[in-house]
């Protein structure tokens, strides 16, 4: 139950309600809810396709069809290389990893405002909501990643030692995305305008993050390229390509991948928690 409040009581056992929870207690409460945080999005994933014939197969079929379309367009209809070898591999890694962050952040932005009823009836650390969304998206990335591997193998790539970095990179990108989604959830609760804005932010990011083309190919100047490290989406997409098939990447980008994860998570969590007691209030 509400074990969050059993400690530090005055002699008569009463304490004022609605006081902010200390950080340690908050984190412990989140940990105590881990089963909920994991279970709920998995149930959601399972029930998502309840009214379809293929059911859970859609989780794999969806990314497969996406790649199929790209193959048709860029492999058959207008085969261009845009400065990279095996463009389909390049594209698949870029699009899938970009979409992962996009899903975490844009669904996370809605996670609080879409659970007002829950917030008003039950008491729990509100960070549960964006966190649970992140876990769900991470699980859903599994089949997407599998399709990505199939494409990579189909083009004759073999696993390298760099693949050992896959979990590290995945965790870093996930932490960054979680941090950004916490930030987005707080501001979207304040002003829902953010929800309308986000699709355009991501569309812009999509075009400036080198998802469709090699930034390296078009931007020669090292200084100018270093500027791209300020775009976290570019950083992660580039890092994925480097890990999976050895695309170009620099130490600056590696450092940026770590820095973006740590800073965004800390800032996002702090900002989200500062609004803890405002979620669910009217007016």
């Amino acid at each position, binding site marked *: *139950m*509400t*074990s*969050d*409040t*059993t400690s530090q009581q005055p002699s*008569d*056992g*009463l*304490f*004022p*309600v*609605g*006081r902010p929870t200390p950080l340690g207690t908050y984190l412990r409460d989140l940990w*105590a*809810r881990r*089963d*909920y945080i994991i*279970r*709920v999005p998995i*149930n*959601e994933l399972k*029930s*998502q396709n*309840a009214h379809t014939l293929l059911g859970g197969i859609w989780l794999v079929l969806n990314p497969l069809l996406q790649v199929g379309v790209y193959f048709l367009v860029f492999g058959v209809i207008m085969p261009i290389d845009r400065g990279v070898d095996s463009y389909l591999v390049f594209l698949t890694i870029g699009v899938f990893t970009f979409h992962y962050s996009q899903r975490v952040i844009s669904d996370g932005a809605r996670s609080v405002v879409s*659970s*007002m*009823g*829950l917030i*008003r*009836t*039950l*008491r*729990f650390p509100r960070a549960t909501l964006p966190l649970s969304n992140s876990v769900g998206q991470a699980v859903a990335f599994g089949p997407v990643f599998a399709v990505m591997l199939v494409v990579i193998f189909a083009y004759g790539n073999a696993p390298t030692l760099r693949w050992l970095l896959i979990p590290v990179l995945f965790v870093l990108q996930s932490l960054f995305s979680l941090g950004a989604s916490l930030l987005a959830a707080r501001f979207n609760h304040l*002003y829902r305008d953010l929800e309308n804005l986000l699709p355009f932010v991501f569309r812009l990011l999509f075009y400036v993050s080198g998802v469709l083309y090699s930034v390296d190919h078009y931007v020669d100047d090292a200084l100018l390229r270093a500027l791209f490290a300020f775009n976290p989406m570019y950083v992660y997409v580039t890092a994925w390509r480097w890990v999976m098939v050895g695309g170009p990447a620099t130490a600056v980008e590696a450092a940026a991948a770590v820095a973006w994860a740590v800073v965004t998570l800390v800032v996002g969590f702090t900002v989200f928690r500062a609004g803890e*007691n405002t979620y*669910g*209030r*009217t*007016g």
Partner: protein
Amino acid sequence: MTDIALRCVNAEVTYTIRSHRPLIRDILRGQRPAAQKIHALRGVTFDIPVGESVGIVGPNGSGKTTMLQATTGLLPVSAGEILVRSVPTFLGVQAVLRNQLTGRRNIEVGLLAQGLNRAAVEELLPAVVEFTGLGNAIDMRMETYSSGMKARLHFAVATATSPEILLIDEALAVGDRSFREKSAQRLDEHRANAGTVLLVSHNLAEIRRSCDRVIWLQDGLIVADGPTDEVLASYEAS
């Protein structure tokens, strides 16, 4: 001396309702949306001992729901203070239940949402399934349920855990007569285990049945606070 479960000392809750959030248009024109300050609670003081069942009555808009929400910390008090032994919990998991999930899955999720871990859920699950009396339908998706069946599921999940201080805001009489009796029993058990209950209801018969004491609210102030029979007698006479 009995222990106090909940103490309100001159608790006031004030909030502003606006016709709409200030839009950029209003800000540019230097206008403010029509706003009204609501004094939902204007200084209420009472102690509720552990294990007592208290009914809250009063006309619509008298501050009953506000008071319950303030005791959970959802609404901040603007003056005075509210002290509790443990944070009160609303009876209700409506917001957690999902149409696309089976009854059984919904019970699992509902219990997890109330803060139980997986082991505790496994342990409690059979008893809750039994209590719903839904039989084989428990493994059907909730969207196939009638409203009565949904209500049974909802009540069973909501009362499966016993918070120290339980808040009930209306809507207790669910399902058919036999299920209503079962529900009433469940609440009696809760009180027998020294659970404290605050019940907001317009159903005075229900309050008579389950409350030892009644607080009558009007315009955010306490009009009367005492034994159920006395307070309800004057409330009905008003």
